[in-house]
């Protein structure tokens, strides 16, 4: 359990965007680009060169959120000590405003599968994840945020609801939560539950960051909608509406636009961030 003095989340309750190197010049040329930037930790674990030089420079001008995609917190095996050391190093020199990872697994028997894979919500998984998060927070020396996944299927063996599962993890480990509102919408559609009742059950007090992103639409074997979390387009209107629903209950939070595939021009991404600003402006201070 992390002691609360090491929470140190310093992201402003403003819109941020996932940083893409093709936007480097525009971000720096713009007088008021965005409130903060998020980077994928693994892209900044080389020894040097342009990625690290850009990051160093950006971090002098913007709060940075380090978002890991490769730690495999939910893995059945032990955490990769080399990867943990690399995270500690990055978080150590960068001293980011926030550090987050996913409720998922991606590595098994030292094979990295480059996707966020789903977990059964059982007592056994809970124990394992809490032990891993304890280890991460101890090693890295600060609080981490844990993000809810987008789900395409359910596990027969699950005995916890996702909001209860996340609440219990946060209670046991002292970690914070990163609420991906698009992921809630995608999972709710795919697994046939109400996104509003998910939010009602979700521990909003523990949320230190919100994610928004675009998804694709497909169908399952029975012609039912199957939404896919692709981060390759604009956030859809029902997800913006769900963001309003969250913010009405949570108060202002840092809101990130994720756009990772078919990355658009800066102006398109910036317009999404403006829309997030409008959502934040709507709520009474």
């Amino acid at each position, binding site marked *: 359990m992390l002691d609360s003095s090491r929470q140190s989340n310093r992201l402003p309750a403003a819109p941020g965007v996932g940083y893409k190197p093709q936007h480097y010049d525009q971000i720096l040329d713009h007088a008021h680009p965005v409130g903060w930037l998020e980077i994928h930790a693994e892209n900044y674990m080389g*020894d*040097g060169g*342009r990625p690290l030089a850009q990051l160093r420079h950006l971090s002098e001008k913007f709060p940075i959120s380090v978002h890991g995609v*490769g730690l495999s917190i939910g893995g059945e095996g032990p955490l*990769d000590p080399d990867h943990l050391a690399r995270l500690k190093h990055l978080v150590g020199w960068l001293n980011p405003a926030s550090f987050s990872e996913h409720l998922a697994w991606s590595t*098994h028997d030292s*094979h990295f599968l480059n996707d966020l*894979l789903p977990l059964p919500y059982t007592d056994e998984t809970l124990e394992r994840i809490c032990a891993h998060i304890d280890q991460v927070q101890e090693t890295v020396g600060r609080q981490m945020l844990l993000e809810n996944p987008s789900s395409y299927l*359910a596990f027969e063996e699950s005995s916890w609801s996702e909001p209860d599962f996340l609440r219990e993890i946060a209670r046991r480990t002292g970690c914070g939560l990163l609420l991906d509102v698009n992921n809630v919408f995608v999972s709710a559609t795919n697994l*046939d539950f109400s996104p509003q009742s998910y939010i009602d059950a979700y521990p909003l007090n523990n949320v230190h960051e919100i994610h928004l992103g675009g998804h694709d639409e497909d169908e399952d074997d029975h012609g039912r909608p199957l939404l896919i979390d692709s981060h390759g387009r604009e956030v859809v209107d029902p997800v913006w509406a769900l963001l309003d629903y969250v913010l009405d209950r949570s108060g202002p939070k840092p809101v990130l636009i994720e756009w990772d595939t078919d990355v658009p021009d800066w102006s398109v991404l910036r317009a999404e961030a403006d829309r997030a600003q409008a959502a934040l402006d709507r709520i009474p201070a």
Partner: protein
Amino acid sequence: MSVSQTTFRAALLDPSAAVPDGLWDAAERPAGRRFSVYRNNVAVSLTEAMHQAFPVITQLLGSQNMDGLAGLFLRKHPPSSPLMMFYGEEFPEFLAGMEQLSHLGYLADVARLELALRRSYHSADSQAAPPDALAIPPEEIVLAKLEFAPSLKVLRSDWPLFSIWRFNSEDGAPKPAPGSEDILITRPEFDPAPHLLPKGGADWIAHIQAGLTIGEAFEHTSAEFPEFDLGATLALLLQGGAITSVSIERLAT
């Protein structure tokens, strides 16, 4: 019914395998296509990573052939670490072992070059020695030892590797002629670039890296390559900012 990650992974990487039992939709029907979303994510993201990592191989083989090769490769060699920037270490050897590609013997070397360029891109930064660091009398130059930037990489090839590279990445570059070419990669600031090394240059650099003086390395190299051009090799290194220190141990007088 519980689904272990061993079971899950095996079904992920084998498209012909059955979807594991114990995964279902909201109406408790077997997951079916829903599982394919993960299969697809893994295959598509790793295939995409291979295209990005090996653009010249992709161009040489065509995008569709590269998709097919990447599909075979990623199942045989899934990434061994989450650092996707270094994915594909085993690709040159994999290409060399492909019977159907044996008529394109140089492919493996092109892949090695693309890997080396990526490693150079992510290498530690370093400060180049000042341009006049070697502006010293010849009798002192031969006594000098050099240190190189971590971003310096050398590739030896039995193929005209540099010409093949240029032909496939530069408009109007001449067609490669038969022969063998060694390559020096330097990274003046952030962008690594390949250069054709003079014959013997790769050996001379290896001798310097082993701690010999410029003079000793030259003697060893020109014993095997009488035509070795030390001046041209030094010029490539200096222009590329690849020499980080020059130290001269003067003889005791």
